């Protein structure tokens, strides 16, 4: 399993789990939950924060936050 911060632009993955309690509750209420498909849409200049496509919209989060989200690469 990889973490979300390693996702490259255009890659798709499925969210598996979170390694941080507080962040998971924030992300889940925004539709970013285990089983959802996620893809990286862009990163800000200097690589952080990043923007992901999830649940039909675009969500931005910092790289160290993305590191707390575990994913399975799909393609």
């Amino acid at each position, binding site marked *: 399993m990889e973490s979300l911060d390693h996702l490259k632009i255009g890659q798709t993955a499925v969210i598996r789990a979170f390694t941080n309690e*507080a962040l998971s509750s924030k992300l889940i*209420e925004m*539709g970013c939950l285990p089983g959802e498909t996620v893809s990286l849409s*862009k990163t800000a200049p200097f690589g952080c924060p990043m923007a992901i496509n999830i649940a039909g*919209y675009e969500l931005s989060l*910092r790289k160290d936050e993305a590191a707390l989200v575990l994913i399975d690469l799909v393609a």
Partner: protein
Amino acid sequence: MSETKQNNYLKIALLGNPNAGKSSVFNGLTGLSQKTGNYAGVTVDRQEGKTTFLHNQTKITFSILDLPGIYSLYPNSNDEIIACKTLLDEKENIDVVVIVVDAANLKRNLLLATQLIDLKFKTVIALNMMDEANKQGIVINIKELEKTLGAEIVPLDSRRQIGFTELKNAILNAKVSPSIFYDLTASYAAEYPNYKEYIIATLNQNKNKTSAIAENADKIYRFNSINYLIAKNVKSPEQLSSKKISSKIDAVITHKVYGYIVLLLVLFFVFQFIFFISEAPMNWIELAFMNLGDFVHAKLPEGQLNDLIVNGVITGISGVVMFIPQIAFLFMFIGFLEDSGYMARASFIMDKVMRRFGLNGKSVIPLISGTACAVPAIMATRSISNTKERLITVFILPLISCSARLPVYTLLISVLFPNSQFLGIFNSKGIVLFLLYFLGFLVTLITASVLKRLLKTKETSFFVMELPVYRWPQTKNIGLMVFSKVKVFVKEAGKIILAISIILWFLSTHGGSDKYKELEKKQNTLVNLESSELNLVELKKIETEKLEQSYIGKFGHFIEPSIKPLGYDWKIGIALITSFAAREVFVGTMATIYQANDTESEIGIKQKLLSEKDEAGNLKYTPAVCWSLLLFYAFALQCMSTIAVVKRETKSWTWVLVQLAFMSALAYLSAFGAYQFLS
């Protein structure tokens, strides 16, 4: 207190996700009949409004409460907690909950909707942005969705004001939905009788591990049901055209080169408006109040009351009204940037840089606006949702050199360099001015970095935020927002500004001593004489002596020992005190003290200052004194309006006093250092 409930009066709460267009639904229902208040003890605006209409020949009134945007009933930030607590507060007596849902973003929006339905309020769902959903080719089977949710769904197009009559009717007929989507008290929190009791109880206590697990399970279960609902009832194209357009715009806006160029252009434009375009209306306001003052002065009988009204009250009010153009322009831009979706992108590309200094991507706009005026800039920090980052931004903003410092800088620099001098190709005056602005920014960033380490918060900070699709902002929403911001400023900061103006007026026009009364008598006899050249000079002299003998003059003498190490005498002491109201008053006070000719004040004072000698016969305004004063004004919190706004925006006098103490110490020490080093 509970009012007697009648069928023709209903209390409505508006709830929904951020970016779901809640405020346009609120504006569509209430129009100008809005009131911005405050929730006790926190810096969250409380928006309320009323709408009255005829229904079957009966007059019906809705009192509508617009609650802060939330994603679920398990709040993370302060304003989310407020939204949930207010909804469940018995004193609020909410009759009907209107859930505002973005039709183009149904999945995420329905989480909150199902939770609110489970609270067993009477609910109506406002399916907002139907126009966009239609344009995108999203087809929603509203009838089926209504059946499952058990609540009436009203499609809305708030841009064209379509659907509001239907929404009002639906509110009148609202029922409690029979559906239950999930009840976490059944499996995880058996000690609570039902979902509502659980939410009320957990809002008022610290979360524990069990409740966190229960709540995540709740959300995941709900999303499973929602996925099923959406698969059955919503048809949506593979890729939405709005997303395609947004990602094309973003290719430029968040680009590593073009993105910053665009941001720079936006900031430059905002800066131009606040700094230069506001100048004209501000001058009109100043002129209008001067005329009003003259008019009142002529109409009212001579005396104390006349003077109080003209020089205390009218001056004070004009000092409040003066800020309206800047506040209005700044919030017009902020409204446009927020509603269009640009603000989220600006935060996105600035976050990494700003975070180093304990600031936020959203601190950029306030920081730039601060170069014009700290007052609207501090008000603009509302959009920073992280409390710590917001407080740091508020704290450092007054350190940035604002436009009120310019007259002070200009005068002192012209004394420092009476003739144009050049350093290479650069004008030395320009270099000094640039240095002062640069110094302001430098100290601002250093202070922010220090505060970042000092301040501790309980709130965990995440930068998880939606990048909404680009939308053309609605003028009505921006107009109403600007109107409410101006109203709040005038009402709340205005009180403090007016009070300080009157106190300063009293202290500078009253003196307890016999000498003061004698001067007053002398002045009166002179005024009553026929005017001649000699009288005017004599009058000016008396005015100066009066200021010296007034309470403020006494105070100037009193503080002289403490400001002597900075190179100041009691005359500068007086100017320091009077300019506490606003920095630019320094110039006017110096003109009075040195009896400069009013009409050409700046050149007049400059000459006076250049020729002023101390007791030993040496020049008074040496470069050491000028630099000391320049640095003092660069860092001192000499602005009552800023103090009033910081008080309002932080809800605490402690914060104001800490800021005042810090900036005063900084000003004193740097002025001291400069004077001692240079003399």
